[in-house]
């Protein structure tokens, strides 16, 4: 899987790994927006280019519903907006959530998130998510499409 350097369109290989305890010291609100220490009870993953953390995602595994909920996600400050350095970070993290859901639940896998109302349509358009009222979700073919697009 790779992200794209917006300046020169160059592909850069990245990894998604589980966060380690010592990482929390470096996860400042100024760079990653949220207080990530509050997510310690969840499964928190980091997208890294070499050792540099470019994105973070907190997942909740709802075993009863065979569903992974993305409870929090943020890309690092320098990768947001029109002046961002790298593209595809959020897509890869969402694809990784899909991979995790399939690893646990196979064909019944589902990934969901609760969007801010005004942002809902963007998640639907960008990631082919299905509207389920309060939540949007991925399952079946749309999940396969995102795995293919982000090469997981």
């Amino acid at each position, binding site marked *: 899987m790779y992200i794209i350097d917006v300046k020169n369109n160059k592909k850069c290989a990245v990894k998604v790994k589980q966060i380690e305890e010592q990482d929390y010291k470096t996860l400042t609100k100024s760079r990653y927006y949220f207080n990530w220490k509050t997510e310690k009870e969840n499964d928190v993953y980091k997208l890294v280019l070499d050792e540099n953390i470019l994105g973070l995602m907190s997942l909740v595994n709802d075993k009863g519903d065979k569903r992974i909920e993305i409870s929090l996600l943020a890309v690092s400050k320098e990768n*947001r907006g029109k002046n961002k350095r790298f593209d595809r970070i959020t897509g890869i993290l969402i694809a990784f959530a899909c991979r995790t859901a*399939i*690893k646990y639940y196979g*064909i019944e896998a*589902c990934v969901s998130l609760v969007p801010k109302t005004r942002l809902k349509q963007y998640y639907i358009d*960008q990631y082919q998510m299905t509207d389920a009222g309060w939540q949007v*979700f991925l399952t079946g073919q749309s999940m396969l499409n995102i795995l293919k697009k982000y090469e997981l």
Partner: protein
Amino acid sequence: MKKDKLKIKYTEKELADSFVFRNNLTQFQKEESTIQMRLQRKKMENLIHPNEALLFSLLQLKYQIEDYLENSNYDVERSFSYYLRTYLNFLNKKNKEFAKDIDIAETELSQILNQHRKPSEKLFIRLEIHSNKIIPAITWFKLSEKEKEHDILTNNSLRIREQNHVRNKLSFS
């Protein structure tokens, strides 16, 4: 930076491209959202094609193997034969039928599944082709190598046996 400052700095699309915000649903809304989600998923379950179900099963197997390989711990239960047997189960194939699929003798397959024989390179390649590249040959190879690595690290009886074949052993003070 407060959320309203984010709204000034970024467009809505840029926000959706960079964040999933914490949800502030009330308990009632959470329960309502669970019901909505279950209903929608139920509707979509009916649209699943059997071929799609098999693809998901193979991806599930692939991701489980990949994560096991990533983990430095060795697990005697997660052998090459265990994952190969799981592959056959997902395909709902008998040994004889599958051996025919990949053009090996049924006895050879049986020996591999019962850990009486090591898998060969040709098998890794044929498995990759059989799965339509969903599970690459390199994944099967690494799985087999992980077992071999553990065996080399821990096989003391082999060490004792092989001592008899070594002369002029180097000695250092």
